[in-house]
């Protein structure tokens, strides 16, 4: 068994200095002549506890590693097989140290079909991907299956698009396959724009070949001869790794003319996104690819018939494409055995917000929200109470505690007034104000609306105005009715998916958390203590020993030190309600009312 050192090079770990660790390992290995393979991999998923280092073959799992820990890891673990206790993960539930990656509860409940290779291969080395069984699906498709055969398999698998709406992938492919045209396009959508979502990014950074392989198979099935991978320009590592991967695939003969000796040819180009959220919408993406402003058009004539440059085009999310090699390799029957009746396979989710284990997870469809949030996510930060989870990105809905046992799949989420979207999950605790949340997402969407059609441009603006008035205590009860009526028209009448789903955050919070809206309007109070116009901070004199921590924390000098053992005094006129004093006080002597 080869000795491997896998250093996570994902976004979170890189930001915390895993790049320095990689260099430290590199020079030490060289210096000491250690026979170990060093891998600088894509995201392992457990971002909360990064930077992560996994020593194979046993997969000894170290978390929160620093560059200065590297010599000790090489000396003890790599060379002598000893475990360094202090770098191990401590399971907060049992308070016990966990030695091996597979035993970490965060990973135990996952099924990492798409994401599993991320921690095991160097994304810049095609050999790693091939050694792990990569491109076998392509070989099988091209040499043993007809395009129609692949299509039947994909249809039978029941896979639905992972980008948002969950349209059956097989039907989408079939439409493009049947469309008439001498030139057809296959396009991968990696323009992930939802706040808090980073699964597409991590897939493209950590395992670009899996997406490329899926794309070539898709291209073969529909008869595409040109392909584009549209990646957000804000994802420079994804752009870089994908470009490297494409060049390698072409060199080996997986891309270009007569792929693997067959008569199928395909070339793929990387296109960097223009920096607008709306460019993730299929028609806007295609307009952007053509060099036009990224604005959507009505899809009454489908892109499968007239898409990019008015030619038949097939657009898939990168996660969808990464599933394809598995479906071809292991068969539709195997794939459809995972998941629920209407949603097959696994899904990658990003867990962010007030949750202990921030990161990326992959679970079979049908797992409950409770399992995701508590068993994998480790529950709510600081033992606070769960309030809601927002699924599906900015146009998704907020799901309350009463629905925590909901089985996560396309249909169940839609029934709850939310959606799967691309798989973002934002967890909110008791200190989150749902009016404020609705305001945040409306603000985001008002910024990102392209402005073409009236209901989206003007409607979201008005929704935001009303919700802002509610948050500021300037609204009347009648405004709730107006919110619902306007929201309904914006859903009904908007041109594209952005506008059609934009009212979801406000409509779903109104449905499940109406009492919070009422409290803001009638009592002029924000129950969660968030909306600045409706709250004030007070010093609880009997709890305050005059330690002065809050005095130091206050950025506007609104708190006066009155001497030791005397309570401090807060000037309400100067207070900007930033909450620094509240956070600084350990003795509950600052109160929000």
């Amino acid at each position: 068994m080869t000795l491997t050192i896998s250093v996570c090079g994902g976004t979170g770990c890189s930001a915390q200095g895993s790049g320095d660790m990689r260099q430290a390992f590199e020079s030490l290995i060289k210096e000491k002549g250690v026979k170990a393979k060093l891998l600088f991999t894509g995201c392992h998923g457990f971002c909360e506890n990064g930077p992560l280092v996994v020593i194979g073959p046993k997969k000894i799992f170290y978390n929160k590693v620093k560059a200065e820990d590297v010599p000790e890891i090489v000396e003890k673990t790599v060379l002598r097989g000893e475990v360094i206790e202090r770098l191990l993960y401590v399971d907060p539930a049992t308070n016990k140290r966990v030695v091996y990656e597979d035993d970490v509860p965060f990973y135990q409940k996952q099924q990492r079909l798409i994401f599993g290779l991320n921690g095991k291969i160097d994304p810049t080395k095609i050999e790693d991907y091939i050694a792990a069984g990569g491109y076998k699906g392509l070989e099988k498709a091209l040499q043993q299956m007809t395009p129609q055969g692949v299509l039947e398999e994909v249809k039978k698998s029941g896979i639905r698009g992972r980008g948002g709406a969950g349209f059956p992938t097989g039907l989408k492919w079939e439409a493009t396959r049947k469309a008439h045209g001498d030139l057809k396009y296959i396009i991968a959508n990696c323009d992930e724009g939802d706040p808090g979502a980073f699964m597409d990014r991590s897939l493209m950074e950590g395992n670009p070949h899996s997406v490329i392989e899926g794309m070539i198979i898709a291209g073969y099935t529909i008869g595409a001869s040109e392909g584009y991978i549209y990646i957000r320009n804000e994802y420079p590592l994804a752009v870089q790794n994908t470009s490297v991967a494409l060049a390698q695939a072409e060199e080996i003969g997986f891309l270009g003319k007569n792929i693997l000796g067959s008569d199928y040819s395909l070339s793929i180009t990387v296109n960097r996104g223009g920096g607008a959220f709306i460019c993730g919408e299929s028609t806007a993406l295609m307009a952007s690819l053509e060099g036009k402003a990224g604005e959507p058009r009505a899809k009454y004539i489908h892109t499968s018939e007239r898409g990019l440059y008015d030619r038949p085009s097939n657009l898939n999310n990168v996660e969808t494409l990464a599933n394809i090699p598995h479906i071809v390799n292991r068969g539709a029957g195997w794939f459809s055995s995972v998941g629920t009746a209407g949603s097959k396979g696994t899904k990658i989710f990003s867990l962010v917000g007030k949750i202990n284990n921030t990161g990326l997870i992959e679970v079979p469809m049908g797992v409950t929200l409770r399992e995701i949030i508590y068993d994998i996510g480790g529950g709510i930060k600081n033992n606070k109470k769960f309030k809601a989870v927002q699924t599906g990105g900015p146009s998704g809905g907020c799901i309350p505690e009463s629905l925590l046992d909901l089985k996560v799949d396309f249909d169940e989420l839609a029934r709850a007034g939310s959606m799967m979207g691309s798989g973002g999950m934002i967890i909110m605790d008791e200190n989150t104000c749902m009016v404020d949340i609705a305001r945040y997402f409306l603000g985001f969407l008002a910024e990102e609306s392209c402005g073409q059609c009236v209901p989206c441009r003007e409607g979201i603006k008005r929704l935001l105005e009303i919700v802002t008035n509610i948050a500021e205590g300037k609204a009347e009860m009648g405004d709730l009715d107006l919110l619902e009526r306007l929201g309904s028209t914006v859903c009904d009448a908007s041109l594209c998916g952005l506008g059609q789903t934009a009212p979801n955050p406000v409509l779903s919070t109104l449905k499940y958390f109406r009492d919070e809206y009422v409290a803001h309007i009638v009592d002029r109070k924000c129950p969660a203590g968030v909306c600045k116009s409706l709250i004030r901070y007070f010093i609880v004199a009997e709890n305050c020993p005059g330690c002065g921590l809050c005095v130091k924390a206050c950025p506007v000098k609104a708190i006066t030190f009155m001497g030791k053992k005397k309570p401090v005094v807060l000037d309400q006129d100067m207070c900007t309600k930033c909450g620094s004093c509240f956070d600084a006080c350990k003795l509950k002597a600052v109160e929000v009312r």
Partner: protein
Amino acid sequence: MVKINIDGNDLEAREGSTVLEVARENNIDIPTLCYHPELTPSGDCRLCLVELVRGNRSKMVVSCLYPVEPGLVVKTNTERVQTDRRMVMQLLLSICPGSELLQDMGKKLGVGKVEFPVEKNPCILCGLCVKACKEVVGVGAIGFAQRGTKRVVTTPFDEPSGTCIGCGSCVFVCPTKFVKMEDKNGYRIIPNWGVKLKLVNCSKCGTPFAPERQLEHIRKKLKLPADALTVCPSCK
């Protein structure tokens, strides 16, 4: 020909036509604002929304873009259609309350009090001027810039247009009289695009009648000799 049904009427429609075209040909009234028969429809104003019925399901589409297909069942005046149209009209009236056209259309649709704070924006971003300039005139001097509520119709980089020929097509199609034009002291002025173009005097009566840039554009387009178009319309 394709057979479709609009509001209970069985109609014959030309293949490739839109629901709106068929409705208009059959005197079925559907309100529009950003639609013009000579320009490519874009479906931006959403006032021409209609409901498509399939079995017991229905969906909302804009009729100016929806192509007819055999067996299509369209309802142009359901409660849902009316509610959505009224709300869209309210949104338009709230940004551009001064427009007589909008006021009249609002009245016809049954819009009562506008429930949103009223702004004084003269432009509703319908895009007719942009399309007229590009598609009919063939100049493309103006376009959209920015996005969302910051969206505006303007010239490249917001600078005085160097390509506008001063033909006034944008003024002609503007439904809210936002784009203005004036001939003064021998010049044609379109302040919206920062344009001030010298007018050519009629070779017969001496009255200034058209900007040189416009005449040049027409000569080029129609392949006329350099000495053509020197006489004003009244002297012709």
